[in-house]
């Protein structure tokens, strides 16, 4: 009945799944912060819909990762009892929710990336992962379309909205690099046919992302030299605060059944 943190194994397969699963979970958690505070009621609906989809994807991935990890953990132990260093999402997902411009732009960046990734994962050698991807592809396509519409509206709308979009882009851009980082975990995943090396998605992502930016009257920035390290468990100062909130009940009520 101790709420000691748990650790997952070092298997590249598990790590690969957690990088993706944690991405979905952490972004869902950020989007949840809008609950009841969106600029229009339709967006309260749309944002909670997106959070729900991401949460569903995260649950499937964490459950699958826990099974492969073979220590008898479940999705909740992975979500609520891993400490920050064991979370493997890119830092982009954990950045504070920001204003609606930042939310929309991040949702667009992430859903574009996820859609590319899910499409490749539909052909995964891991049947379970392929099944998760098959469902997620449709969801991500909708998220991407919805976010792109907003990028257009806000980029094109008023002077203020366009300025906010440029500021959001400045904040977000340096963290996009990490979506296309590549290491031994990617290499193993690619070799096994588990999934693509993330780096292989970069050109297509950039083309799609920048095309919508251009339509919205925004310039595609030059590559940033900064490389965040969330995929290796080295996060920003924001994740710790998020986990303190998210994990509190599980930590404070050891042995609870919910």
């Amino acid at each position, binding site marked *: 009945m101790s709420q000691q943190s748990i650790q997952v194994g070092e298997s590249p397969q598990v790590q690969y799944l957690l990088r993706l699963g944690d991405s979905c*979970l952490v972004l869902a*958690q950020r989007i*949840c*912060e809008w*609950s*009841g*505070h*969106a*600029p*229009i*009621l*339709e967006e*309260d*609906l749309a944002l*909670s*819909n997106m*959070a*729900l989809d991401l*949460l*569903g994807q*995260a*649950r499937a991935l*964490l459950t699958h990762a826990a099974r492969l990890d073979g220590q008898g953990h479940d*999705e*909740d132990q992975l*979500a*609520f009892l891993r400490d920050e260093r064991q979370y493997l999402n890119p830092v982009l997902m954990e950045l504070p929710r920001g*204003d*609606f411009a930042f939310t929309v732009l991040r949702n667009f960046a992430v859903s574009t990336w996820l859609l590319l990734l899910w499409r490749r994962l539909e052909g995964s050698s891991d049947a379970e992962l392929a099944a998760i991807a098959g469902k997620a592809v449709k969801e991500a396509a909708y998220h991407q379309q919805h976010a792109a519409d907003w990028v*257009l*509206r*806000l980029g*094109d*709308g*008023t002077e*203020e*909205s366009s300025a*906010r979009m440029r500021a959001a882009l400045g904040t977000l851009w340096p963290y996009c690099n990490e979506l296309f980082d590549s290491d031994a975990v990617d290499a193993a995943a690619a070799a096994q046919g588990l999934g693509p090396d993330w780096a292989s998605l970069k050109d297509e992502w950039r083309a799609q992302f920048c095309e919508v930016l251009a339509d919205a009257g925004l310039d595609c920035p030059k590559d940033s030299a900064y490389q965040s390290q969330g995929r290796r468990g080295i996060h920003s100062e924001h994740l710790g605060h998020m986990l303190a*909130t*998210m994990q*509190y*009940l*599980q930590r404070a*009520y*050891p*042995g*609870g*059944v*919910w």
Partner: protein
Amino acid sequence: AQREAAFEARIAAGDFIEPKDWMPEHYRKTLVRQISQHAHSEIVGMLPEGNWVTRAPTLKRKAILLAKIQDEAGHGLYLYSAAETLGTSRDQMLDALHTGKAKYSSIFNYPTLNWADIGVIGWLVDGAAIMNQVPLCRCSYAPYARAMIRVCREESFHQRQGYESLLVMMREGTAAQKAMVQDAVNRWWWPALMMFGPEDKDSPNSEQSIRWGIKRVTNDQLRQKFVDATVPQAEILGITLPDPDLKWNAEREAHDFGKIDWSEFWRVVNGEGPLNRERLGARVKAWEDGAWVRDAALAHARKQATKEQAA
């Protein structure tokens, strides 16, 4: 006066009124007030639950809570649409909310202080809301009745989910969890009873609303029905309802229950509840913070329209 007599006859015959039909101004105003108040309650009601989304104890519970809040946003949308058929725009209704002219259900001025509050809101608050709302599915104004059918169906689902989550904690949980559930019930029981409104003798709007088929059962009747339905559920849960006077009255075939603190009721209705200021403040802030977004969407739509005309 002839039209009014015909209208009253249709109502008396149990006919439904559609937006294009003639209706008395007072009927229209009463409905707009009631439907918009209901819509406001849905969106203000997202706040106490939203307070726990980021802290839900399992991913499954987080998903259930998110979905519930999403449903409430959906209810808000149908209800605003139903009210719009009566000629008042959503922006007008929101303005009335934000300036304090329109009300929302007082229950949402109470805080959610522990996780079990989420289950108890599902069980007691949604339960009371359903009692209030089921009769409205037969309301004389058709768009409202149609909206309510959908709302009631989803709320019954929420109520069952809330109750089920409490059952899990009470049956399988730790002592600390059981204490949490009891604490939540202690805080929500009386406010839930107040949701049915003042006693019939103090409820001036009831009579005409009932005649018009906008309201079909009285406050006290509904409250009694709610108590009678809830007591056995509490027993199954194994929690104590915080009312020493609550007991079965074999003669009435109903439960007697203690005196409601109506001074608290009126205090909260009149703005001095625990969170009146904060709830309204949160809605106003969301609205004001979002002004630039709505402006931008409008500006973009205008530019698009101009481009299309030019093409």
